[in-house]
């Protein structure tokens, strides 16, 4: 006990100034032990928190209505990679950009695009009827399936994917409104498992290059 090197003390002058206890006292050792234990507990706790965040991956059950009236669930396109985007047809800028990006990517991918099912899910079920969605996606690739549903079913889908959506009234005082919303592509593998969240590039070629390595896999 007494043969501890005295050099240990000046290494931490701040601590010794704050704690007037002699360096080699059992009380100090006890304090160090308590400190280390607390530190270890914090490490374990933060690791557990990380694991919990890690398990809250986007994806889950949904049961919605396609623009052609069919029921589409999270199981409908099993066997294909799914690229899921949440948006709304009254969205003047960001959502058409995303659908255009998908459209271009599909054309760049060529035959490989057959392995991918793009899905557009509305965050505005109040206005996005199947008929409006059909018109909306008609301006883009015919492969894109657009889904709507009851407010509760859309809410459940948003929650499953961790999507943020909030109504913002138009500046002109009309009944018109916009939605602030998450704008990402969620990539699910053919088994319906979450794989990646991709940013939305304006250039569909960039999206195609990001998707290519995934589509080459056979999970």
């Amino acid at each position, binding site marked *: 006990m007494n043969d501890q090197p005295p050099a240990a003390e000046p290494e931490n002058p701040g601590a010794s100034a704050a704690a007037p206890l002699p360096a080699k006292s059992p009380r100090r050792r006890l304090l160090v032990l308590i400190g280390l234990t607390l530190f270890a507990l914090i490490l374990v706790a933060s690791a557990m928190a990380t694991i919990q965040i890690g398990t809250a991956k986007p994806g889950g059950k949904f049961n919605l209505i396609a623009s052609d009236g069919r029921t589409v669930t999270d199981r409908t396109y099993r066997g294909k990679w799914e690229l899921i985007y949440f948006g709304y*047809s*009254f*969205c*003047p*800028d*960001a959502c*058409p*950009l995303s659908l*255009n990006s998908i459209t*271009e990517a599909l054309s760049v991918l060529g035959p490989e695009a057959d392995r991918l099912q793009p899905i557009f899910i509305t965050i505005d079920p109040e*206005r996005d009827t199947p008929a*409006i*969605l059909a*018109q*909306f996606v*008609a*301006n883009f690739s015919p492969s894109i399936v657009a889904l709507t549903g009851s407010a509760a079913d859309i809410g459940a889908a948003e929650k499953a994917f961790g999507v*943020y959506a909030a109504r*913002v009234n*138009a*500046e*002109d005082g*009309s009944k*018109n409104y*916009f939605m*602030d*919303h*998450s*704008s*990402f592509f969620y990539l699910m593998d053919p088994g319906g498992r979450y794989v990646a969240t991709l*940013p*939305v590039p*304006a*250039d569909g070629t960039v999206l195609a290059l990001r998707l290519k390595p995934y589509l080459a896999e056979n999970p």
Partner: protein
Amino acid sequence: MRYAPILVLLFGLGVNSVAAQEAVLTIEHAWARPTAAANAAAYLTIGNAGTGDDILTAVNCAPIAPCMVHETVDDNGRMSMHRLDSVTIAAGAHVEFRPGARHIMLMNLKSPLVAGTSFPITLHFERAGDVTVTVAVEQDRH
């Protein structure tokens, strides 16, 4: 006479240019996507080949809908839009209005925009005054 604004509309080339004092503006590739719903965005590029700045202070799309200058802001994947009261077109600059960024937002369209059609937008600049451009409704061609 030298400083009298000269309005030149070159519809055939799809380029409208205006010379006013030291700001010489060109407005190119005015386009909008076809839509299903009542809101749309129009895009264009404003160039200033002159020696003085100009400021876009208002837009008017009255024949088809109320409109305003808007900007889409991407905050880590969370999209929101904000109104811009003015946009400075600095001397020598090319200011782009493009998807995912600045755009002219049309609200409460009387009818959806159909590919192959066109509509006018009047841009009001502090120095150049009113400039009317023809916006082509077409798919994105970058």
